[in-house]
């Protein structure tokens, strides 16, 4: 029997991240800073801890709450819950309903732990269902890192060739300690236009990430001959894990294979910080084979997440939210 408790903002600011690091499936999206970042976009972060009979923290969940007319509450737990999966049961849902102060609750979680059928069975037995409209592919590629030499050996010949080619171009790669949001957006603009993509990150989103999560972020940029930004790459580091966050290349940067040099440099930096597990943050080997190939050839292995599951106080609400997500994905 576990007991889920809501942590106050003050208590969580002091202890949340250190407790989180005790859970093997900790990740950047469950950090206190990430919750603060999302709060800049209308979400209210709620932080809950499950205690067992011996009063030991056994599971944790940072969930983002948004209230809609009619006291309908949307709860979204990116990267969570973490910890003992047996605790993600009725007791969690009761606690969520209580903290939401509503009987019309839709909750979606997105666990980043590796898929195991045993875990999926526990979730299914606890009335969680797989989301009919997932926000992400549920797959990623991961680099297991010990030292730079081993990392370089793991790359394919083709990837290494492109890396060396990038280093021979008239460009330089360096740590970007104070990223200029306007410059970052320019690179994204160029990439989005070239690939016909929707806006990946708004200026507000970027500003919030760099301001609120700055302690966790490593950002590098690639500059051309005249000092223009050709590409950028940023990852978030938490404990021994890193997660790709931002990556973009301007048209010129694509020509000079800037992404190879940037990726290799960011990973090398992460290794120096003691990162052993680098998540390349999502791949879709069916719909986006190019990106999949790029990441795979870095020497990464496929990681299937336990993924997205949802639960609601009403089946109609569940359908409605899935419909709404289908119509307007992104933004959670």
């Amino acid at each position, binding site marked *: 029997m576990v007991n889920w408790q809501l942590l106050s903002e003050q208590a969580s600011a002091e202890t949340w991240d250190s407790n989180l690091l005790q859970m093997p499936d900790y990740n950047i999206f469950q950090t206190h800073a990430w919750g603060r970042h999302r709060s800049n976009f209308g979400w209210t972060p709620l932080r809950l801890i499950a205690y067992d009979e011996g009063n030991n923290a056994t599971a944790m969940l940072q969930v983002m709450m948004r209230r809609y007319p009619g006291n309908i509450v949307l709860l979204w737990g990116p990267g969570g819950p973490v910890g003992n999966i047996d605790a993600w049961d009725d007791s969690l849902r009761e606690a969520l309903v209580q903290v939401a102060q509503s009987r019309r609750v839709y909750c979606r979680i997105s666990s980043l732990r590796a898929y195991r*059928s045993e875990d999926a*069975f526990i979730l*299914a037995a606890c*009335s969680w269902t797989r989301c009919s409209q997932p926000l992400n592919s549920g797959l990623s590629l991961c680099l297991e890192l010990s030292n730079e030499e081993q990392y370089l050996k793991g790359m394919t010949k083709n990837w290494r060739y492109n890396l060396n080619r990038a280093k021979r171009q008239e460009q330089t790669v360096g740590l970007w300690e104070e990223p200029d949001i306007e410059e970052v957006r320019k690179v994204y603009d160029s990439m989005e236009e070239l690939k016909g993509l929707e806006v990946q990150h708004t200026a507000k989103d970027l500003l919030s990430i760099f301001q609120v999560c700055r302690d966790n972020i490593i950002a590098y940029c690639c500059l051309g001959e005249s000092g223009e930004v050709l590409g950028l790459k940023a990852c978030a580091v938490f404990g021994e894990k890193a997660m790709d966050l931002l990556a973009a290349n301007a048209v010129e940067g694509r020509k000079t294979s800037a992404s190879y040099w940037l990726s290799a440099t960011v990973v090398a930096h992460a290794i120096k910080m003691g990162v052993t597990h680098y998540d390349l943050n999502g791949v*879709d080997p069916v*719909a986006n084979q190019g990106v999949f190939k790029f990441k795979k050839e870095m020497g990464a292995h496929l990681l*299937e997440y336990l993924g997205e599951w949802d639960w609601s106080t009403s089946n109609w609400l569940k359908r409605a939210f899935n419909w709404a997500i289908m119509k307007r994905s992104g933004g959670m």
Partner: protein
Amino acid sequence: MITWQPISDETGPGDWNNSVLLFPDYNIYQTYAWGQHREDFGWQPLRLMARDEENRPVAMMQVMLRRYPGNVVLLWSPGGPVGNIEAWNENLHQELVRQAGSGKVFCRIASRRAYQTKDVLHLKAASWTKPAQPLNSGWTMLLELVDEEGFLNGLSEGWRRKLDRSQKLEDSISLWEKPELEAMLQVYDAMEEYEGLEVHSRERLQSLFRRCGENILVFRCLGNNDEVIGFRACARWGDKAWDLLGAATPEGRQACVSYGLTRAMLNHCIKLGIKHYDLSGIDPSGLKWVIDYKKGTGARPLEYLGEWEWSTSNWLKRGANWAIKKKGDGL
């Protein structure tokens, strides 16, 4: 480029089965005999094979067809397709429409391969969707068999205790080489009265043994008066087996006969070289004792890739799901 083509009935069961067996996700529901069994209930089995540019078979599918007024065609493929999932694409849809001879087709598949996100992405990219009304939970318990010792070591405490209790029946449990339908039905009747469970019809059992008898193993336990107090049947094919039938009278239940029968069945399967024993379905939110019983054998939960559907029209898809909701079983 992958091309799907129908396999004529003249090809015969031997060739079909041998080809299906080459794919790792082969299963009893894709055998020729299973198609014949379903044929006894008004379904028309269609058998298709996908070949690559070099004419090598890459995927296969046995699908049951049923035609409704207005030339609406329902296609249902239990356990299929099998083989390379990249072949379960628009070419397959086109071939199904061609074979159905109709522009109003609803097709549901129920793959028995283990759930993998990559497979899900392939299916979604090929316009398959998850059914609003699935027929099954999409879960089973899978027991990996190595030897008897391994099986006994994997048992839970509770399961082992019950097995010990059934020990006194050991001499009464044996392979039932020529299962008698009447005796089986009597056990089902007794169980139905006792537990209020729905049982298999005479026609279904008759057809099952007539068509698939070669693949079926049955163990029974006899009571004091030589009456059957419990039996268990599985279908076996290649190095896999699937639970099919099982029933016990109140007397058999009291003596924990199902534990003794399961052990005898699994021992026999091990001797036959069976490596994977599928306990044929489980509902994660279902009866706890059923889950505990299956889990107690040392089996682990397996999530199937499961049911997916595709239709020439969204309205037809909704209609078919509505009909399935009204009349759950029967596919």
